């Protein structure tokens, strides 16, 4: 996860819009939606499907490395062939497969999502943060009632589905946690 974070930072700081990396155990595809143009993958390349959410400016991270995605390469090239990712899944099933393996932390209330206790302080959690059931992951504000939301599970944060300061609906997924 640490490498992945560095990657995202490099991606952002160099103003890239599209980036792919693949090895035996992981496949990463970063893409930034600068304009609403449909960037279709060249047919010869094995490009991961993008989830069809409308996340704007920050880079969208798609990690399609099936069951082996919990770590960066550790076991070397002799990684179990059964866990190597399928590279040409249709978009819908790829998205479903991805969400199935993550535990979603959802919003118990309609309100505004805040990743940190104040605009100038550090986020409660980031991608790669380890959480426990009583870890505070965010605040949802409604009518100036500030609600601390707990992870309610143990694992590592992989996805943050909502941007800071955005409205969220009742039951909307906020974070994806790899358990």
């Amino acid at each position: 996860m640490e490498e992945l974070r560095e990657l995202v930072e490099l991606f952002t700081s160099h103003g890239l819009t599209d980036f792919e990396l693949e090895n035996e155990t992981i496949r990463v595809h970063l893409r930034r939606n600068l304009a609403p143009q449909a960037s279709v993958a060249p047919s010869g390349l094995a490009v991961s499907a993008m989830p069809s959410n409308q996340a704007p400016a920050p880079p969208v991270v798609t990690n399609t490395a099936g069951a082996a995605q919990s770590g960066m390469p550790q076991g070397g090239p002799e990684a179990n062939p059964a866990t190597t990712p399928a590279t040409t899944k249709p978009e819908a099933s790829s998205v479903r497969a991805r969400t199935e393996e993550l535990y979603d932390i959802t919003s118990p209330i309609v309100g505004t999502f805040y990743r940190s206790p104040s605009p100038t302080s550090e986020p409660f959690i980031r991608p790669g943060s380890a959480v426990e059931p009583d870890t505070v992951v965010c605040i949802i504000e409604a009518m100036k009632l500030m609600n601390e939301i707990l992870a309610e599970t143990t694992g590592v944060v992989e996805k943050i589905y909502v941007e800071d300061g955005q409205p969220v609906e009742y039951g909307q997924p906020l974070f994806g946690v790899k358990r």
Partner: protein
Amino acid sequence: MPLRLTILRFDSLASTNTEAARQAAGGAPEGLCVVAREQTAGRGRQQRVWVSPADAGLYFSIVLRPRLEMKEWPLLTLMAAIAVADALREACGLEVDIKWPNDIHAGGRKLCGILAETVENPPRGRACIIGIGINLTARAFPPELSEVATSIEKLTGSKPDVEALLGALLRAIERRYARWQAAGGGAESRREWSRRSSYAEGKRVRVALGEEFFEGTTRGLAGDGALRVETNDGKIRIVRAGDVTALRPVEGMNGN
């Protein structure tokens, strides 16, 4: 079931809300109150500072554990504002305005702020901490805020009896909380809030939502206490966060 009120009193605390949250985490039942003569790290929303010199304000927090579903809870902050308005009327003879959702204003200036937070401590479940800071004297706020803040002393000409005010506040919270949790309590709270607030209907406001600003006219409350604002192109926007301010200065709210 009526609230069983217990008051913990402190000469000095970092923050009454922080102490109340700590008590809630330790399993404190609802009705536990924390009062401090001064706060050394009093805070408002998003960690803004709430200046709290000794004996210049009422610094109060209460732990509640509502039976209603959590999605109903945002109305608690409106209920708290109504309770403060009740207490100020009873103990100090003041008529105040409620600025959406829960700031207490008098003469167009802020007299009281409310910071409501919910915390969850498995297996105890979720608790709501309502913090209330009322300016008793002008020492409660720095001079540079004198154009936007006011105090009971400034409004009535005398320093209030803080114990009488606290007593009235506790009775008002008990009464309003019981009504809110009773059948039809949400609708009654919204009606009562609308009766007390000049922001409920037909007020020209400016809404700041993060980077976004828009102007419009207020059109009552949605079911959860959100403010309905009709924009200049006739659309209704539902406001649940951000800052809502009156476009024209509010005047004469003391005399309504």
